[in-house]
């Protein structure tokens, strides 16, 4: 192991600084130098910078374990989860910037939560039981085990916003629902507990802000931290929506 070589490496983090709440603030890059520790993640590095160098630096971490989706940011120009990015996998110079598309709170912090809530309201991302509410004292409805696994697979999305930040369409169309939204429609479409039909889903995503807005650049698929099968899901959903649309 190269631990002796790496353990005292100096790294430089070049972070985009900008506080939109300050009238006179200008976006700029600020550089922080620190000593790399073994096993250091960007969570550890940024926390150390805030504690020891610059208490005003804004960023978001919650779980610091790669499961909550809070810490999406541009890491050397590519969207990713900062908490599980290990500094030794990067060069000595690391550039960090906030995810584009989302409203900027300040520095590396963006309001992806607000965006996601808007998307959920628009696409109605919940099971529509259509009045079918079972008696919870009784044995639950059976579900095919493989189907349950398939639904879980699509349910693994953590709404980190990396797919939206990497999306060409999202840059051009403010109301584009992104791979995150399309994947959610695919997830509920697959779920037999959701009684919506394709005609209902077509109303939600059958336009250029939905599945027909996707240009198939598919950066979303490449950057998704949970490796969701976005490419196949979007293609499949588009085919189904074309069928629905031509049916009139």
């Amino acid at each position, binding site marked *: 192991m190269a631990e002796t070589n790496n353990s005292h490496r100096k790294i430089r983090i070049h972070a985009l600084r900008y*506080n939109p709440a300050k009238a006179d603030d200008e976006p700029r890059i600020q550089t922080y130098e620190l000593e790399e520790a073994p096993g250091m993640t960007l969570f550890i590095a940024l926390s150390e910078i805030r504690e020891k160098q610059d208490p005003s630096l804004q960023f978001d971490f919650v779980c*610091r374990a790669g499961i909550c989706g809070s810490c999406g940011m541009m890491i050397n120009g590519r969207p990713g989860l900062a908490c599980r990015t290990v500094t030794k996998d990067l060069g000595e110079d690391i550039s960090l910037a906030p995810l584009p598309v989302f409203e900027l709170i*300040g520095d590396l912090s963006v309001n992806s939560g607000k965006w996601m*809530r808007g998307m959920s309201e628009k696409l109605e991302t919940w099971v529509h039981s259509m009045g079918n509410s079972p008696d919870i004292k009784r044995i639950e409805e059976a579900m095919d085990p493989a189907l349950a696994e398939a639904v*879980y697979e699509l349910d693994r999305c953590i709404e980190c916003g990396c797919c939206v930040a990497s999306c060409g369409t999202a840059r051009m169309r403010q109301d584009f629902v992104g791979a995150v939204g399309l994947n959610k429609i695919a997830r509920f479409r697959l779920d037999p507990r959701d009684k919506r039909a394709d005609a209902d889903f077509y109303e939600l995503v059958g336009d250029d802000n939905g599945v027909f807005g996707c240009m198939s650049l598919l950066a979303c698929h490449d950057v998704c931290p949970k490796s969701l099968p976005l490419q196949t899901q979007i293609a499949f959903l588009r085919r189904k929506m074309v069928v629905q649309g031509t049916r009139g």
Partner: protein
Amino acid sequence: MKIVYTDVLVIGGGLAGLRLAIGAKRRGHDAVILSLVPAKRSHSKAAQGGMQASLGNVTKGQGDTEDVHFEDTVRGSDWGADQEVVRMFVNTAPKAVRELAAWGVPWSRVRKGDRDVIINGQKVTITERDEAHGLIAQRDFGGTKKWRTCYAADGTGHAMINTVADQAIADSIPVHERKEALALIHDGTRCYGAVVRDLITGEVSAYVATATAVCTGGAGRVYRTTTNAVICEGIGHALALETGVSALGNMEAVQFHPTGIFPAGILVTEGCRGDGGLLKDVDGHRFMPDYEPEKKELASRDVVSRRMEEHIKKGKGVQSRFGEHIWLDITLLGEKHIHTNLREVWDICHYFLGVDPVKDLIPVRPAQHYTMGGVRTDASGHSPTLKGLFSAGEAACWDMHGFNRLGGNSVAETVVAGMIVGESVADYCDKLANTPTVPLGLVREFVEREQAKLAAFTKGGGTEDASAIKGEMQDLMTANVGIFRTGKELEEAVDKLQKLLVRSRKIGLRSPSLGANPELVTAYRVQRMLKIALTIAYGASVRTESRGAHFRSDFPRRNDAEWLKRTLATWKNDADTLPTLGYEALDVTRMELPPGWRGYGAKDYIDHPDTPERQKAVEAIRAQFASDRFAMQKALMPYEHLLPEVLRGRNERIDERF
């Protein structure tokens, strides 16, 4: 002064708060949820392995009932739990799982026929019944007699909060994200809401409500090494404590999870061991059967964590540059199982350790994990000392975990408590007499007091560094108030924490903005965290016995004669540097399960004088009603009157149809 009015103010957007708000809203009361972060990013999301509910669908869960779940939970608590609350919980848990199934949680399902599993290190073939095919599956977890833990792969909390948060959106419940409560507004007898700070703009406003519910999760971040998310700083606990009238129960009861990855402390689920994973020492020896021949790796968490540390102290830990650890071996579970049922574990090992658990061992060591103590409430979730204040989930002490919580019982508690307390909040709001006449002068006084405290940080000329104080507190708690505790170390901790608290009153900021300012946030939170740390350390130093997760090396026996009681801490005056401790006795004569040996861990304890007589009475009732478990339970300890009417009633099972 900006004021937001609502019927129900829920502080905390995790599973407990979301479910509570949904319950209140469906009963016709408006609810607003305050959350530090977007709701789906709450720490509920981190629950991996599953949720206990006695469905009994899988073969190894056959014969499971509320009765077995009840006994496991009370034994797990080392008899610290309120047994009526445990009964309410175990009877509601199956309903909660089934409600979540209807709402869309992708629970893992039973597949009929043969399958190979690992039990006690051996491959065993078990056969699932045809009639269970497609029903919700259960896995094994620590401290349970039956396979009872329902799961969605190892992303159970993730799947649950996705569904429940989306349900809250469906019900048009607003979640005010990035908002932090700074104080509860109260007049000493009644709570009127909270003073709230916007973490983006820094604006301070008041939220006024008929009922206020603290659902803020745990306080793990008062420790250095914890599995908890960075937002789990015990602020909700502190808000209640700072009222001076609301008490915190059993704060010295702190759980350490056996398998935090080493050294980062990130959790890998108990499901690793439940599914057959083993703990091994420096020699590759599986040591748990040497200590715990009956439950082995699957004794309760407090016991397994102590055995691991004990084994390390014997020189059997694995040396690394960060210190010593134990190995967790899940290689015997096979690639397919790991990639299907333990995929978050695989992700965590891959990204944070650079190891592949399909073929490599995982370095683990116990890390702070769960706060059993919390805001003291009655069985309906209502504070007995501050009217209109409710609490649910990890933040609360209603008290179903006592001194040790079983794995799979916390994420279950969040939803169950949300269901129960949501109803009692709605009942409370239904009564016209409970609608407050808002004392606007008082509201303004509270808002201005908090504004003045914030201004003191930015302009008060203090010189102390908030981050440094926080770091010292965390190191001290991990070093002195950990798994093994002694009077000497605890007294030293209490002394040093008091000094830190005094220093924290002179914090100054390098970055003196009242707007978005992480340093300001650290400053006001660390003062509150120190009060919580002191409540934990002081409670632990006074409790001269060992019970559940609270282990005193100098008092290693459980002492029911003197300590079968709940600690109640209050903070009388803001200038105090110690909480005031009181105690509330647990009544053995009303217990369905009188105190005894847990079935694992130490066999040695001091009985309560009432125990033998109660034991006899219980045995007589059991004999009398041997043929009807429901009648027996009712005769032993009636509890159903405590449940909201909509949640009463039996639970159907394959083997128990009605």
